[in-house]
């Protein structure tokens, strides 16, 4: 495994400010176990503010478990055990008392869209309402802003009161993204968001992500190696619970990384 620090030193000679920005999420010797066995073993790297951090790797690599650990979803999964340390803005999240406050700063988008059985409007207004916002005018502003950002506003602005769960798959996924944005998150985690979305919409969402990067930090878990290449500043390659490589994304493709398995995977030569 290539240490992230070494990579950063290399890049700091060539690259602009991105590499130098402060650490948003620190991961140290993170291991995740389920009752059935380990999901992630001894992973360490830093995710920096305002970067898109890609995670690629085949199924059962531990990508989704990693996201769950960041959001402290072990609280709802009795069989899930997390060892090691994750810091959010320098705070050890295992010591956070108000995990709800932590989660409300992290937006999550799942592989399959989850349109909650509420109206389109209520789907997007849910997170602000959970946080106690009641002012109708403010809610209206948030709903319109988030739906616009998620490239859905034009399609649903005339039917904000129809059910979110009745939208098409691609629309529901954009609704999910709008809902995640309505939390006004500092960190956005996308877990293979484009599985149920058509290519055109995928491109529109990718443009949105590139724009969002200026304000927030994004973790992009993806099965599409080229998507990581298009979007991610740095990318980690997970394989069978190990983090094989963490490097500036382009280096994974130009063969500047050490591990043969990574090169095989990005070039599609993987068994």
């Amino acid at each position, binding site marked *: 495994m290539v240490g992230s620090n070494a990579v950063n030193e290399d890049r700091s000679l060539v690259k602009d400010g991105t590499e130098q920005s402060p650490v948003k999420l620190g991961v140290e010797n993170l291991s995740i176990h389920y009752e059935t066995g380990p999901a992630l073993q001894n992973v360490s790297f830093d995710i920096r503010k305002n970067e898109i951090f890609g995670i690629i790797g085949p199924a059962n690599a531990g990508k989704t478990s990693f996201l769950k650990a960041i*959001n402290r*979803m072990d609280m*709802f999964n*009795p069989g899930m055990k997390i060892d090691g340390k994750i810091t959010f803005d320098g705070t050890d999240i295992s010591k956070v008392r108000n995990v*709800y*406050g*932590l*989660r*409300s*700063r*992290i*937006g*999550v988008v*799942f592989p*399959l869209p*989850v*349109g*909650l*059985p*509420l109206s389109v409007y209520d789907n997007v207004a*849910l*997170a602000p309402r*959970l*946080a106690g916002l009641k002012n109708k005018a403010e809610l209206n502003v948030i709903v319109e802003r988030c739906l616009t950002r998620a490239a859905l506003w034009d399609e649903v602005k005339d039917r904000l009161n129809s*059910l979110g*769960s*009745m939208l098409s798959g691609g629309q529901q996924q954009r609704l*999910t993204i709008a*809902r*995640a944005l309505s*939390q006004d998150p500092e960190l956005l985690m996308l877990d293979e968001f484009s599985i149920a979305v058509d290519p055109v919409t995928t491109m529109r969402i990718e443009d949105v992500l590139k724009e969002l990067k200026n304000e927030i930090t994004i973790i992009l878990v993806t099965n599409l190696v080229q998507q990581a290449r298009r979007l991610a500043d740095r990318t980690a390659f997970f394989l069978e619970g190990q983090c094989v490589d963490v490097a500036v994304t382009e280096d994974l493709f130009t063969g500047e990384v050490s591990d043969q398995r990574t090169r095989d995977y990005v070039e599609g030569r993987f068994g």
Partner: protein
Amino acid sequence: MFEASPINLKNLTRQKIFRFLLGSMTATLILPVALILGTLIVKGAPVISFDFLFTSPTNGMTAGGIFPALLGTILLVLVALLASVPLGVAAAIYLSEYAPDNWFTRAINLAIINLAGVPSIVHALFGLGAFVLFFRFGTSILAASLTLAVMTLPVVIVATRESLQAVPMAFREACWNMGATRWQTIRRIVLPNAVTGILTGVILEVSRTSGETAPIMFTGAVFFLPFLPQGVFDQTMALSLHLFVVSTQVPEMPEAVPYGVALVLIGMVLLMNSASIALRMYLRGKKKW
């Protein structure tokens, strides 16, 4: 081109025989329902009138109406609901949404299953011991209703728990990931989508409760009262017990009266069941996922 071979013909013949057999057995299911309803309507309908429903029995119950019994049954069911629905729904929410999977939860689940299997006459004796004697409620509407509530609690719990668990897990996870607490998730997403099932369960409970005889016999229902109950600590008449009385205990009872009482009782139950089915169909049409 597609001529049937002998083996095809044999299969086709067998298929016809079995379809006929299974179908006719299913059709016989209608028979008892049709016979019961038919008999009750033919023999009981002539006595049903406004006076029958809304006046008190007279002449040693051989004449007059059934109003005290009808009112008593409604009161018993209402008070039983007031006790069992909050308790049952709360328990079901805890079991479905909060309870960890450990020996204690499993013990509670086992208790619920066993409670559902206790014969009603045993519930009656329990009610007599617990509510009438120990809590000193006396033989009263309160004691009888609480006995009915204990008896129907498992129905409410199981129906509620099942409708809660029919709400997809992904909805809860989406909420939790946003920073919602378990209660916020239950309040905003889970309960609104489970309310159909809960209501159906409650209505089925009502229809079952209204017909029970044994549990109320020792705890609050009486053969005859010259006045209407004034509060929950009074005794009351009830349709189910009244049916038993007019059928077996009163000499020289006109034959139509027991049929009339039975018709009112079964009419009440059918009305509730139909309401439950209609409600379910209406809300299913509005299903949200």
